[in-house]
């Protein structure tokens, strides 16, 4: 299976003004030299706590933020070097579904208009063909045909997320960025949407970049998982390996904090002390060392590189 998306050296710095008059400035390294690949038809889960850079990463992949440095290759092409027409093609091939289906659908548009909007902008389909395509898409996401004539407020949260998914699939994209697609939904509805996303991937061969806080959902959906901490990938590998036998102390603590519902499951108690440091002043060396239970003296001075360890990549001096 070929790599659909290859990211190398990807970096995004934001300059923030500081001080009462905003005369001094500081640089936030929101994403700092990360690399990953995503295969066709596969799912990469991107996890980490708020401020770790996962949303900035997804925005750069979506073309909504321009990287400070690094390359994004999609289908073998350098995305950042594309001309205007190339960028248009790229945007068609990559779509997004966001967290809140109450905010991402225009309340004054009928569902048919919402789902057809990408077709109107990007294709030359006539009205009848568009209606047929909308009908297909609604059927694909499990909504009745009559949904086309209704407004978003007439649907529940789960059904709205189905509408958002139908819109994202309208142009048959190769990659869909799923940014917390189920966290706004009721617990009993989440499984419906996760199952739908799995079925659509099998049926259409689409790739997902899956961002979520719910680690069990990420482990369930993903083929590979990349764990980010303060702008860096600290562990990247096969989803089951990362979820069940995490190697990086941060990954271990993160997955230990994802509380299993099995009351008898033996679990390791790793509770980190302290909070995530400000990305304005990340600690030197390994960013994680002030909170790490296994920190060694050189962790405070040398940043560890991603190295192969037990079938995945880990950035930690322990290995």
């Amino acid at each position: 299976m070929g790599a659909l998306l290859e990211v190398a050296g990807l970096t995004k710095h934001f300059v923030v003004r500081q001080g009462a008059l905003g005369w001094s400035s500081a640089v936030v390294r929101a994403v700092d030299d990360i690399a990953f690949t995503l295969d066709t038809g596969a799912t990469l889960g991107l996890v980490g706590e708020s401020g770790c850079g996962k949303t900035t990463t997804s925005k750069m992949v979506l073309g909504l933020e321009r990287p400070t440095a690094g390359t994004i290759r999609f289908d073998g092409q350098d995305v950042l070097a594309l001309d205007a027409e190339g960028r248009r093609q790229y945007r068609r091939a990559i779509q997004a579904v966001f967290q809140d289906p109450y905010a991402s659908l225009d309340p004054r548009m009928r569902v048919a208009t919402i789902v057809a909007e990408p077709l109107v902008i990007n294709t030359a389909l006539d009205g009848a063909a568009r209606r047929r395509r909308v009908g297909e898409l609604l059927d694909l996401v499990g909504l009745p045909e009559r949904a086309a004539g209704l407004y978003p407020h007439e649907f529940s949260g789960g059904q709205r997320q189905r509408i958002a998914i139908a819109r994202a699939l309208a142009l048959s994209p190769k990659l869909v960025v799923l940014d917390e697609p189920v966290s706004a939904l009721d617990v009993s509805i989440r499984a419906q949407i996760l199952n739908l996303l799995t079925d659509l991937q099998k049926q259409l061969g689409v790739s997902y970049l899956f961002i979520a806080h719910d680690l069990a959902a990420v482990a369930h959906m993903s083929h590979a998982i990349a764990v980010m901490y303060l702008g860096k990938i600290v562990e990247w590998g096969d989803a089951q390996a990362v979820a069940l036998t995490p190697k990086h102390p941060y990954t271990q603590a993160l997955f230990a904090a994802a509380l299993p519902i099995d009351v008898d499951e033996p679990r390791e108690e790793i509770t980190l002390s302290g909070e995530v440091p400000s990305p304005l002043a990340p600690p030197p060396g390994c960013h994680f060392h002030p909170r790490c239970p296994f920190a060694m003296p050189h962790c405070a001075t040398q940043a560890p590189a991603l190295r192969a360890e037990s079938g995945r990549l880990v950035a930690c001096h322990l290995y």
Partner: protein
Amino acid sequence: MQDDTRSDARALPPTVIDVRELRTHLVTRWGTIKAVDGVSFAVQESETLGLVGESGSGKSMTCLSLVRLAPRPAARTVGGQVLLDGDDLLTKSEREMQRIRGRKVAMILQDPMSSLNPVFSVGMQMREPVASYHGLRGRALTERAASLLASVRIPAPLQRLRAFPHQMSGGMRQRVVGAMAIAAPPRLLIADEPTTSLDLTIQAQYLNLLKELQQQHRFAMIFVTHNLGIVARMCERVAVMYAGRIIEIGPVRRIFKTPAHPYTRALLASVPRLAAKGERLTAIEGQPPDLATLAPGCAFASRCAHVMDRCRVDAPPPVTLDDGHTTRCWLHVSA
């Protein structure tokens, strides 16, 4: 005689809160909604009861009704008893309630920013409950407030008293709310999704902190959440709510291992697990019911895999299985 003393030593800890047939209705343009419809449970000293259910199932409205803070004029508690150490809160005057809230019953809500005043320093806000309970002033008051902050693991507490809420992280703010909650050691702590806005590793810290505070102060805790993993970790017993009713209540281990109600079973089966990649999740079909147009019978009937004719006609009564495990389902009523 000896036997008596021994059974005394093993006697159950006293019941702190005993809720009986609580009913809170919401009067709206679309009719009367039975948001809390005959809810009964009890929580003992040092015990944690998890209250789980989907949005609109009535868990937050139950908690608000306990302390008589359900939004008025729409919400009206129309029946039942809320016995706090045997004393019915529903018969208290508003003045008496104000003394009970914050002294005997404390609450921690989801968003710490909505519990803290943005224009006062943390110290100002901390001093208020401390002064009113301990009657302290001046230096002693400040020291007491600082020691409370220290007890929720806030570093440099004396300096932190001068900070404003916006200068703190979400985890830190929620700790401040926790410190205020134990300023007067409460008999009952109601935690309504206290960690939903926190990051995972910070959530783990906060859950540990709540457990420590509970061991120290022996308060009863009602923990509202939709995260079943948190229930497994934090609670001794769990009550599952659906459409304003508790449809199953009992010890956590029992309910997680042998859930009796089809909704509880489906809910537990629908949660993805770390170790089960690729298997299809067991989804619960359909939507949570709209309380304004609730059909007679069991509210879960339209989504239930085991639905029978009588489910659509009569609401099932509570059936006690054993060990304090109770459910409302016709499957468990012997004909």
